[in-house]
């Protein structure tokens, strides 16, 4: 906060203060309670999912979710585009292995990957879902990259193939979701039956979407992290 000129500091304090005061005073919180959870419980019962949030996220408001996955893909694409072509061909020497790091990565990585799969697969039954599962698993790979070197991990997960897989999965998700959104009747489960609530094979197509999104986000996260590792810039 050093060296802030007064002609910036004073208006900033004044305007930000006025903004916060205006919002706080007229928000009228806590006001009259308009509780609407019951509608959502009914909607979730229709879909067969136990986790009401995932019923909304992947069934009632699937259109939002599709757009959001597109936003994420555009971001991955942008990171690839801007970090790839900077003429850095030298390979990154792995950070020298330390025994503790190696061991912790060996122990932790499977746990994290399992956690990711569990979050994805049980998204319709418990908190979690494809997105957090994919991100958790993708970040787990970062740990492996620190311990074994990014190249070692990248050799195992060939990036060109991964990128293609990513787009294929996205296309699949778009295709599988577009038709229920456009033609379906609630609960958008034209693809799969709702099943008995509580079982793994329930919740209609929520499980399917969760798996698709999980795979896509896992790949996207790893591609993004890999480019950040490869890029030897400075900030």
């Amino acid at each position, binding site marked *: *906060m050093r060296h*802030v000129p007064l002609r*910036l*500091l004073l208006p*900033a*304090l004044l305007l*930000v*203060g006025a*903004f*916060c005061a205006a*919002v*706080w005073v007229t*928000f009228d*919180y*806590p006001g009259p309670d308009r*509780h*609407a*959870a019951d509608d*959502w*419980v009914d909607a*979730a*019962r229709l879909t067969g999912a*136990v*986790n*009401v*949030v995932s019923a*909304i*996220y992947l069934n009632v*408001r699937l259109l*939002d*979710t599709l*757009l*959001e996955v597109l*936003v*994420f893909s*555009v*971001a991955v694409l*942008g*990171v690839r585009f*801007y*970090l790839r072509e900077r003429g850095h061909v030298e390979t990154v020497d792995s950070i020298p292995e330390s025994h503790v790091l190696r061991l912790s990565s060996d122990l932790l990585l499977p746990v994290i990957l399992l956690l990711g799969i569990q979050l994805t697969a049980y998204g319709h039954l*418990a*908190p979690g*879902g494809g*997105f957090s599962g994919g991100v958790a698993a993708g970040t787990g790979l970062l740990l492996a990259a620190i311990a074994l070197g990014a190249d070692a991990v990248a050799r195992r997960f060939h990036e060109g193939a991964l990128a293609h897989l990513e787009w294929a999965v996205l296309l699949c998700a778009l295709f599988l979701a577009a038709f229920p959104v456009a033609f379906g009747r609630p609960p958008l489960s034209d693809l799969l039956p709702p099943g008995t*609530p*509580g079982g793994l094979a329930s919740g209609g197509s929520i499980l399917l979407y969760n798996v698709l999104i999980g795979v896509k986000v896992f790949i996207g996260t790893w591609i*993004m992290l890999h480019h950040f590792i490869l*890029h030897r*810039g*400075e*900030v």
Partner: protein
Amino acid sequence: MPINGVTISILLFGIALLGLVLRRDLVIKLLALGLVNASTILCLVSLRARPDGAAPILGAPGESVMVDPLPHAMVLSAIVINFAILALSLVFVMLLVERYHTGDSQQIERETSKEEEP
């Protein structure tokens, strides 16, 4: 002043705005931008929160009332979108810092205006 999620989120919004205006380093500015988005998300989540509420999972034991799940579903999208924006702008900040060897927004402003309008 009651301490609830909405009040705190408005306070956080103000802090983030000040950070966005007063700090000149681009990385810190990005952190402040992340804080702006985090505070709106906190606001959404705590809108319908109630002390006696229950998480929006069907068949949870107890008599408590389920909190409204719609804001939660919205917020999931918003978190992802904010991450996407953050990653891209971080890449751009990296490119700019590599070019100008500084992360100071006003110095970069001067350098670019020199280049674009000779």
